[in-house]
């Protein structure tokens, strides 16, 4: 079964854009949480990851802070 992928991002953050592009290039469906407008999502991200930097990826509960290509690949078994 496909993994549940959530990405907490802002529209202006270059590494968020690249992380989303990377997921698209690999045909990974994801839910984009725009923390610049969605305050609840912002708080959820800070609570889950204990920090405020974007992007944060939640792949089936596994949290990855930043656009860490290797970790993302591993978590998604790409």
């Amino acid at each position, binding site marked *: 079964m496909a993994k549940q992928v959530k990405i907490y991002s802002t529209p202006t*953050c*270059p590494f968020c854009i690249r992380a989303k592009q990377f997921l698209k290039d690999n045909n990974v469906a994801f839910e984009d949480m725009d923390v610049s407008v969605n*305050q609840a999502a*912002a708080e959820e991200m800070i609570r889950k990851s*204990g920090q*405020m930097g974007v992007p944060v990826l939640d792949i089936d509960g596994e949290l990855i802070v930043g656009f860490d290509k290797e970790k993302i690949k591993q978590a998604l078994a790409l």
Partner: protein
Amino acid sequence: MIYDLIIIGAGPAGITASIYAARKKMDILVITKDVGGQAAWSGDIENYTGYQFITGPELVDKFQEHMQKFDIKLKENEEVIELRRKDNLILVKTDKGAYETESVIIASGKRSKELSVPGEKEFKNRGLTYCATCDGPLFAGKDVAVIGAGNSALDAALQLIKIARHIYIINITSALDGDSIMRQKVESTQNITVLNNTQVTAVVGEKMVSGIKIKEKGKEKLLSVQGVFVEIGLMPNSEFAKDIQKNERQEIKVSSQNATNIPGVFAAGDVTDVPEKQIIVAAGEGAKACLSAFRYLAQLK
């Protein structure tokens, strides 16, 4: 194995050098912390010939696509820690291995300067950030401090006026620097307070930032803020190149052919003393450095 050329860095300079080298059929290796460098952090780019408008991430994707057309060996997430000449070869030591090569191009770029005060490392991404463009939106309705007084600091403050509640600009000198248009905007904005002659001495908080300690005319006080944006300029990633001549800003000195003081070691882009730090300049310098390295190798053989 001994490479013809090792390129350190994969920003506009390093990537361009690698494309030129691949087309010259040189045996190369690219070692870098990340692909894109500062260009990946740029917002809108409107002065890269051929693109009337492109964002930093998009341009970096184009660069990467171009590089991937060739079979270029790339080591990502790897940091060079030592570089030295040993007999006729150059030794490149990284945090993950060691390599030997006939020539090197240093294209390691620049990074954000750190404040070097207590609490800075601890609170990085816990309220303290070096990228207002990225993380600014997370500080909606909060009080924040922008450290610095140049264009990047003013730009950060102006990006935050619609997001944060109040913005303090902490400036160590007696007046703001940067373009006059931006200064005027900052000075006429209601929710910005400029604190001149003021130095940050510590970042404090529990889990997240709750304030900064500032010192003005010898008097120290606590300023309550939930966000800290450090914008005090850039520094070259040149520490590993110990035997290489640098200027007072620690930028690597290069000739018009991109040669350094060490034979076989060339440098290009923002890490050098090239007068203008621009994406297109860095790319051009990368091309020049590669052609110089190619000529150097031809003379050896």
